[in-house]
């Protein structure tokens, strides 16, 4: 019987198992199938646990803070017919860290009647830079790709932005402006809330 190392199969096609040594019996389908199946299971389980963790952002929902989503921003009488930017202050959660009274975003507020306002998220619906109000042009301009929006938030063409500025729901409560602050997914024609 030839069992030295040099007897290892050298010239046989890869599809024929155990070739080159007549003393090695041919193996059937079953052991090959079992080897792949059992080895596969052993490999898949750790891979699964890793992928599950990797994909967990897709399974997680933003933790609701128990409120109705409206935040008090400013007194109504502090607003003018010129849009001004205000920070929304709330508790923010960044993975494991809870940050109390942090800025979670900004809004542009403009008074257009005694109890009538406009409220926009400052984030450009194109790809997420923050727009700036330009008094001399009476419009909102995005510093990144030059999207422009009118005072009412309508996109001024030609602009790369696929939609108007994202208007936010607002309420007047006891002389204060409350805004339902939401972020929306950029780049889409439709306004899809980021939850």
């Amino acid at each position, binding site marked *: *019987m030839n*069992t030295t*190392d040099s*007897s*290892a*199969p050298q010239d*046989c096609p*890869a599809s024929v*198992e*155990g*070739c*080159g*040594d007549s*003393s*090695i*019996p041919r*193996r059937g389908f079953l*052991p*090959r199938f*079992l*080897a*792949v199946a*059992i*080895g596969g*299971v*052993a*490999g898949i*389980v*750790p*891979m*699964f*646990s*890793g*992928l*599950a*963790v*990797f*994909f*967990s952002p897709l*399974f*997680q929902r933003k933790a609701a803070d128990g409120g109705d989503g409206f935040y008090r921003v400013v007194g109504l009488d502090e607003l003018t017919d010129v849009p001004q930017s205000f920070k929304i202050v709330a508790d923010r*959660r960044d*993975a*494991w*860290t*809870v*940050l*109390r009274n942090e800025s979670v975003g900004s809004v542009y507020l403009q008074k257009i009647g005694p109890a009538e306002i406009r409220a926009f998220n400052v984030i450009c619906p194109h790809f997420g830079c923050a727009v700036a109000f330009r008094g001399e042009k009476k419009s909102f301009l995005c510093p990144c790709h030059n999207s422009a929006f009118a005072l009412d938030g309508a996109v001024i063409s030609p602009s790369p932005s696929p939609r108007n500025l994202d208007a936010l729901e607002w309420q007047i409560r006891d002389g204060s402006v409350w805004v339902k602050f939401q972020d929306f997914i950029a780049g889409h024609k439709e306004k899809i809330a980021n939850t």
Partner: protein
Amino acid sequence: MNALLNWLDVRTGYKSLVREALYENVPGGARWRYVWGSTLVFTFSVQMITGLFLWMAYSPSTQTAWESVYYIQHEMTFGWLLRGIHHFTAQAMVVLLAVHLMQVVIDGAYKAPREVNFWLGLVLMQIVLGLSLTGYLLPWDQKGYWATRVATNIAGITPVIGPQVQQLLVGGTNYGHQTLTRFFAMHAGLLPALLVAFLVMHIAVFRRHGLTAPDAEWKANATFWPDQVLKDAVACLAVLAAVLLCVCLHGPGPHGGAELGAPADHTDKYDAARPEWYFLFLFQFLKFFEGTNEIYGAMVIPGAIMGFLFLMPFIGGWKLGHRFNVLFLFTLLAGVGWLTWQAVQEDRHNPDHELAVRDAEAKAARIKVLVALKGIGPVGAKQLLRDDSKTQGPVLFKKYCAGCHRYDGHDGTGTRPADVATASDLALLGTRDWIRGMMTSPADDRHFGMTRHGSFDGQTLGDRFTDGEMAKWVAENVHARLMKDEDVAAVVEFLAGQSGRADVAPLNAKQAAAGKQFFAEGSDAVSTTCYSCHEMRLKDELFESGSAGVAAGPDLTGYCSETWLREFISNPGQKKFYGKRNAMPAFADRLSEKDLNLLVEWLLHRWPEPAPPK
């Protein structure tokens, strides 16, 4: 398809590579004893996969390491499974290393011409142990933190360059951010890269010399694929099953799997510090060496043993050398086993260690509650425990109160002091039991009894309290049955309502009102009322007469409420409490406001707990 593969083969030659890999000759047929090397490759692959995904969620800094691991364990989908597999596979790897080494030595696979491969294997063993040592720190929990302090201090006793080596490992003289970033880079970068490099060499040299068949005539020859692969796969699956069993030992889910202790806190000494179980023998070994001899236990002897293992291939060439090697290895493993057993037994019979372990478990459980209730602030989770009265109360009690007082017989932390107490036992302070005791047996050991053994300002107390005004009043009125049982119960109810103790059952309002009445006015038979001695400043017509009587006992307004207790502890000798008869030091200057609050909250059980499940 075939054309494409042939195209590829012509350019890469992959087919011969695959053939070489798969059709390795297995002299004497596939055998179970050959699986160990493959299980090690498998476990290492599992560590690479799980480690990579853990890396995506891990954040190495003192304010985020524990926190990110907590997040993986409790918030990320199947994070507990991922951590659990990584944690227990690491342990499986060490076991498999030992088995592989044994099998190689027993089969004589270390002898010429395989010496180099044996040495490569020993280097791989060192790398795996290094991975386990560095990985132990990364969760930045108390256990990993304090164990790593020991490990790096051992490195620090290296002759001549010890302190420098230690500083380089730790990233300075203090354990902190830099320790974590360095250990993480070693654990996830340097050591795995080294391991891959040495593993490639190990396998390449192995392929060159082939298997060491103890009995090449045992059966017909076989090839690696599929015969040996099938056996290897079954073995790997068995290893994985064992790992999963360990992960699920405490039940699957975020509360099972790999342990996560309380966050590392250098101000909270951790008496339960022990290395991972497979290093326990070294831990135990160090106990045999004294003072400067420690270097023999920590380095010289382990180094000599490793050196001997490296020499095995040469010794194996001598007459009887192989038998000597096998005997040596078995003696070594028996010694390791014996030392491990000793370490476990010593801890098992050490009540201090048991207390330390229980304390560690309590904190590990408590931090989960606090994170769920309050969330982790930017400074990290350890602050939650530092600000938690349930955690800090016992420590403060032991430090400031247990010199005289007891808490259910112990010092707050569970240890029973050898000295006799000289003041009351405060476990029940403010409860109905406490108040009832004060009114029926104030001289018992829970209340004033132990003051007989005490002294204050250089004067022994004797029976100042055990035969004081209160005790006399109890004897005259309660023991003489002038005060009815229902009146006692009523006053207990009224005073329990003054207390802010959180675990007191809701009041019986009617009974409390009757108690208030008795407190102020006594009854037909009892003319010296509570109010005769004890102030009660309630906005109520019953107490409008103003000040209490002459033999003023402590003011009982808000008795055992947080405010009352804070004022009392700050200065029990002030006029509204014990005045001249006081026998307790004032703590206003000794306790910070924060510590006083924590202590009071703990005494009154006013720490936050999750709402009971509905």
